[in-house]
């Protein structure tokens, strides 16, 4: 009888310990994969930022001949592009991205005043391409923010918060549009 009870208690303890170990390993792996998801989501944004920057160079060289009196717009684009190229941190890239998005909005709005430019096939192709990239960027920003949100909730809730503290995992920043970007573009003629 006593031997039987000891065996049962040992098996119960064994299963509980095994379960706890597997559960804890799972939690740890889950947290690490969440952190990696954020890095991957950011890399996917970065790829598009580079693509948009390349398309932007082509766009500027196409429209420059038509829009000779829009030096301010071109200066803004050049400034935003060089800010993106020299950006090292995520925050800097996000800020440069916002600048480019704003400058592009202005450029496309001003282009409406140049019918010959609007009729240029190369310009139309570039505009479509850049608009497509902008749409993809918007989706990937949303995806990035979802990844960050899932991660931030996880590291602030029980029991994952203990691991997060052990691993020194702090909250990540969301990729949000600045107040400036949310404003409508003012077109000066």
């Amino acid at each position, binding site marked *: *009888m006593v*031997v039987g009870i000891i065996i*049962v208690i040992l098996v119960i303890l064994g299963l509980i310990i095994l*379960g706890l170990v597997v*559960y804890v390993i799972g939690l740890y792996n*889950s947290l690490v*994969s969440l952190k990696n*998801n954020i890095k991957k989501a950011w890399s996917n944004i970065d790829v598009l930022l580079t693509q948009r920057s390349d398309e932007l160079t082509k766009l500027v060289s196409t429209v420059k001949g038509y829009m000779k009196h829009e030096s301010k717009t071109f200066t803004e684009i050049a400034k935003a592009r060089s800010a993106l190229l020299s950006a090292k941190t995520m925050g800097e890239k996000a800020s440069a991205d916002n600048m480019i998005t704003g400058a592009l909005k202005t450029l496309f709005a001003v282009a409406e005043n140049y019918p010959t430019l609007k009729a240029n096939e190369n310009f139309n192709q570039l505009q479509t391409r850049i608009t497509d990239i902008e749409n993809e960027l918007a*989706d990937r920003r949303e*995806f990035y923010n979802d990844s960050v949100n899932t991660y931030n909730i996880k590291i602030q809730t029980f029991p994952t918060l203990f691991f997060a503290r052990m691993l020194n995992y702090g909250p990540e920043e969301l990729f949000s549009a600045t107040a400036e970007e949310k404003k409508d573009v003012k077109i000066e003629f």
Partner: protein
Amino acid sequence: MDPRLFVYSGIGLIVGIVLFIKGFLWLKQKRLIENIPTSKIRSLAMGLVEIHGDVVPFKELLTGPFSKKECVYYYYTIEEYRRSGKNSKWITIKHGEQSTPFFLKDNTGSVLINPTGAKIDAPLTTQYESGLMRDPPAAIRNFLTQQNLNFESFFGINKKMRFTEYSIPPATELYILGTAGDNPHMEETTALKGVEDVMIQHGNNDKTYFISTKNEHQLLSSLRWKTIGGIGGGFILSIGSLIVMLIYFGLF
């Protein structure tokens, strides 16, 4: 003591341990689904992705073996009701599945899906039982002939059989967790407007490939209960079976 008690408790112990392990595997799957945000199809990146959308045909569609309706995937079972002494049960005498590549379309675009190698959770579309004075429909009879199966016994009396089909017809809303990779049908698909140049498939690194007609919330809820049932049920079954086994050996 009845030696069958030892056999049953042994089986219970093994099933309990398997359930206990399965429970943790379901928990892993649940965490994976929770951790991956849903991607929009137009902005899919390479690697493991989660998408939602409607089924759109790519090339030719399949025809369900029993329903004779068009679909992109079907799974069927043919069962026979057999009696042995006091016991009787349904025995699967044949089962099979077939799939064809299709597009998944959301409000941003479409992507080609190759369902080969996916764990597919399709809804029940047709179920028919044949038996005494009840012949199977012509579609099922034709299929049985093709498969060299007979619904009648040696004496010409109908056997009690059950024919079940699970399928995914066009326009079905699907949840997919799979790997976005190279698209071998790129020339054919990218010629179509709004179709991405990647294909969702079984990954080489990420083995997870799951297609379901349930939405994410339903899937997570089902996995939550499976996890609780698996870990909790497996634990109780193992311990219970162990106690019975110890009683059998006179140790408890």
